[in-house]
């Protein structure tokens, strides 16, 4: 009986640890990117953008409501907790490996992350867009763009959707990724 009690307690503890880990992942959709820093030595240009919550709140406070452009950015960044971009541009192809790309993909796994399939980009190569969900709420977004001579990762923490990302492109250090959500196909097109 005592042994059974210990076994059940152990099982509950393990379950609690697993649940906590899943919840933590879901609540912190920040991707680890530091391990890619070694690529900076091979890259012709490396860009790191770190706009943390404090700077975002500052931006939301600073951007004017009167200026149309600024008012739009203010609306978009409101509620966000971080914008992080890491981008490497190389002179030659094959300077980064598939393991580098996989190291990002492995962080974007279910159940915390879901890949959006109805997204395309004007850019060449692979462009994958992921959203982090906490229940039904979007709590983060990640874009992985892997071109032959360029590797870019954009990570937005907070409630964000694709429309927002598209409008933020070219602002706040976010590169223009040419991302566009596909329109749902009509019956005739299918």
């Amino acid at each position, binding site marked *: 009986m005592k042994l059974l009690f210990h076994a059940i307690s152990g099982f509950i503890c393990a379950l609690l640890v697993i649940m906590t880990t899943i919840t933590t992942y879901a609540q912190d959709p920040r991707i680890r990117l530091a391990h890619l820093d070694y690529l*900076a030595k091979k890259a012709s240009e*490396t860009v*790191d953008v770190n706009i943390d919550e404090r*700077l975002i709140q500052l931006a939301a406070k*600073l*951007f004017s409501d009167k200026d149309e452009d600024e008012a739009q950015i203010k609306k978009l960044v409101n509620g966000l907790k971080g914008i992080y971009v890491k981008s490497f541009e190389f002179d030659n192809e094959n300077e980064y490996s598939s393991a580098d790309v996989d190291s990002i993909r492995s962080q974007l796994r279910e159940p915390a992350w879901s890949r959006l399939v109805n997204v395309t980009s004007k850019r060449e190569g692979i462009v994958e867009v992921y959203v982090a969900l906490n229940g039904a709420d979007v709590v983060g977004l990640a874009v992985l763009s892997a071109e032959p001579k360029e590797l870019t990762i954009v990570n937005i923490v907070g409630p964000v959707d694709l429309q927002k990302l598209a409008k933020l492109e070219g602002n706040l250090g976010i590169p223009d990724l040419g991302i566009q959500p596909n329109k749902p196909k009509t019956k005739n097109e299918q």
Partner: protein
Amino acid sequence: MKRSTTIKLVTALLAVTLWQTISFAKGDDFNAVVKMIEDFYNVKHEGIPFLAKAAMKAVGVGAKIKGGDAKRFAEAGSIKLATFENQEFKGDLLKFRQMLNDSLALTWSPLVQTLAAQDQEQTYIFVRENGDKFRVLLVTIEQHEGTVVQATVSPKNLALLMKDPEEGAKAITQEATIVDHE
């Protein structure tokens, strides 16, 4: 002396010392960064003559970036500038970046950092609050020259810098170094 009084006194003393340390660290980051560059790359910065400093306070620069209409980017008299010219900046970029980030992590937020390893070019933009205004610290290092600029900017100009960090940084550096080029 009672034990509780001693504890209170020690705590107060510690608090004052800590406050002074933090204030010193905040105020002296510009010099610390210049010193760090000198030590890491074995280079020496050039001082700016007194008259040039005076001119810097009076000069009006039409630094404009996307959406900006300010005639000056930095607040008058707020610019601190250190330049390194005709010197060899050879060293591990990543190691330097790590050192710089570690030393400023407590008081500054890193906004944008760019590296070009082959050309040995590095640009760093750090930001922090300074009362109702903001301080910006820009570090630019190229193969043979370097610049460290610290300036106070208005909230409006910080917004412009955040909107377009690359152009904003160029405008501030241009504004700070224009005296040297004249």
